[in-house]
């Protein structure tokens, strides 16, 4: 198999975007094409979860190719729930590694704010099991609430730890102009003061408002290609060195230990093994913190910390900017935003930005190896990527 490199990256703001979904996808795609100095690619993969339902539009990849006038290149839309983005990158990696294509554009896009928050949450809840979960009114925040309660009971994680994740990621997002939430929050305001219950009410007890990611629109693009192409472009050489994926049971209740995220463990393990990188060598990571508890749980499952010790590392500042292993420097899903189909590509965009040394005020010093975890379903389909600067 051939080595696969990142030729170009592009992103839109993650926020409420009042544009047709194809134009959102086109924006990040054009930015990435310019970044790579290309005007043609061999193939286009578009990651999207909900356009058919939320925006009444199918076959997005065909529409994007037309909008960018990239005909007659091949194009497919890839749907893998909230892990669609990293799934599309993995598919792009396969296309270049196999020798089928020399340049592949991967664009993730979602426009969820076209409907109200309840409809958007209901759309995401359609990934749960139809008769064993969905009929009861369960949503992803509800799944996360049940997971968080058991996790807190088992490992001694408290609401304070969850709030620390939110505060850290909101702080990081202040330094990222593409982030959805530019809102500095404090322990006083969301947990300690008399107004805290008003500022930060329960959504899915024990999870509160500031434990949840926002509903975002957005697009992000990565252009992948061969070593030869990457050298020609003349940017820092960033190799997509590892791709890993694993699945778990559809229903959380069927897992032997419902606080284990075995698909995260499996996916990240495979990605790091392929890249020949150990967890201790990772300089920066983007973990799928749709809910604050997930950043803590995933930081353990990928092997950064022992099971049950992620919240202690958090407390010690290990995972903040300037710490030994900064997590979610972009602001994460929590504050950068979570346009579901775009999220996995957005995570990769941040890691490439860090490895190129282009992250400005939130730059991690000497970042050379980065990891992403893109979490589909409630942990039943996870894709992990490892990028290495050469």
């Amino acid at each position, binding site marked *: 198999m051939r080595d696969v490199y990142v030729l170009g990256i592009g992103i839109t703001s993650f926020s409420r975007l009042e544009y047709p979904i194809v134009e959102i996808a086109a924006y990040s795609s054009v930015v990435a094409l310019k970044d790579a100095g290309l005007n043609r690619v061999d193939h286009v993969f578009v990651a999207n979860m909900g356009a058919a339902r939320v925006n009444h539009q199918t076959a997005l990849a065909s529409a994007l190719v037309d909008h960018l006038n990239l005909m007659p290149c091949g194009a497919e839309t890839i749907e893998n729930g909230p892990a669609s983005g990293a799934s599309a990158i993995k598919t792009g990696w396969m296309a270049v590694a196999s020798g089928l294509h020399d340049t592949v554009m991967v664009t993730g896009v979602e426009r969820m704010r076209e409907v109200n928050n309840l409809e958007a949450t209901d759309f995401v809840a359609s990934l749960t099991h139809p008769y064993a979960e969905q009929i009861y*009114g*369960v*949503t992803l925040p509800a799944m996360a609430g049940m997971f968080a309660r058991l996790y807190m009971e088992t490992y001694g994680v408290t609401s304070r730890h969850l709030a620390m994740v939110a505060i850290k990621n909101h702080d990081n997002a202040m330094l990222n102009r593409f982030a959805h939430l530019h809102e500095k929050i404090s322990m006083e305001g969301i947990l300690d003061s008399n107004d805290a219950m008003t500022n930060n009410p329960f*959504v*899915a007890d024990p999870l509160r408002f500031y434990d949840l990611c926002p509903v975002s629109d957005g697009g992000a693009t990565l252009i992948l290609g061969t070593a030869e192409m990457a050298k020609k472009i003349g940017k820092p050489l960033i190799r997509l060195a590892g791709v890993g994926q694993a699945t778990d*049971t559809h229903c959380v*209740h069927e897992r032997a230990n419902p606080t284990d995220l075995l698909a995260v463990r499996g996916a990240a393990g495979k990605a790091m093994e392929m890249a020949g990188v150990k967890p201790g060598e990772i300089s920066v990571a983007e973990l799928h913190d749709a809910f604050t508890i997930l950043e803590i749980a995933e930081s353990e499952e990928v092997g950064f910390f022992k099971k049950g010790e992620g919240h202690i590392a958090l407390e010690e500042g290990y995972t903040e900017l300037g710490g030994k292993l900064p997590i979610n420097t972009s602001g994460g899903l929590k504050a950068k935003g979570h346009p579901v189909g775009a999220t996995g590509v957005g995570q990769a965009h941040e890691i490439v930005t860090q490895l190129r040394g282009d992250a400005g005020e939130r730059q991690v010093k000497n970042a050379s190896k980065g990891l992403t975890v893109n979490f589909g379903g409630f942990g039943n389909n996870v894709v992990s990527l490892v990028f290495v600067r050469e």
Partner: protein
Amino acid sequence: METRILGYKCRTCGHVHYPNKALCMKCGAGDFDTEPLPFNGTLLTYTELYNPPGDFDVVKLPLGIVELENGVRMMGQLEIDHPAIGMAVKGRVDVVRRTKYDKIKGMIFKAA
């Protein structure tokens, strides 16, 4: 006749599944017998959801995962004022969701 929720027992290894599968999670065989799931169990975890889907006409929706006395787990709605992990619960089959066309039945648990 009392309405029951059915588990799916593998004819080869005896593992009981809920929900159903085409192939057994433990041994991979593909033939199952149905058997009613028990009503009694213990509450494994729970949440109170304050923004339930739009078609629910309630302020908060308590949901939980219960480990039934045969070891099979399932999700259900809770009618419990002060739920706690590990408490004994007893289920009944009743309407859990009303759509435009249907009344959908599922498990609702109370304190045992």
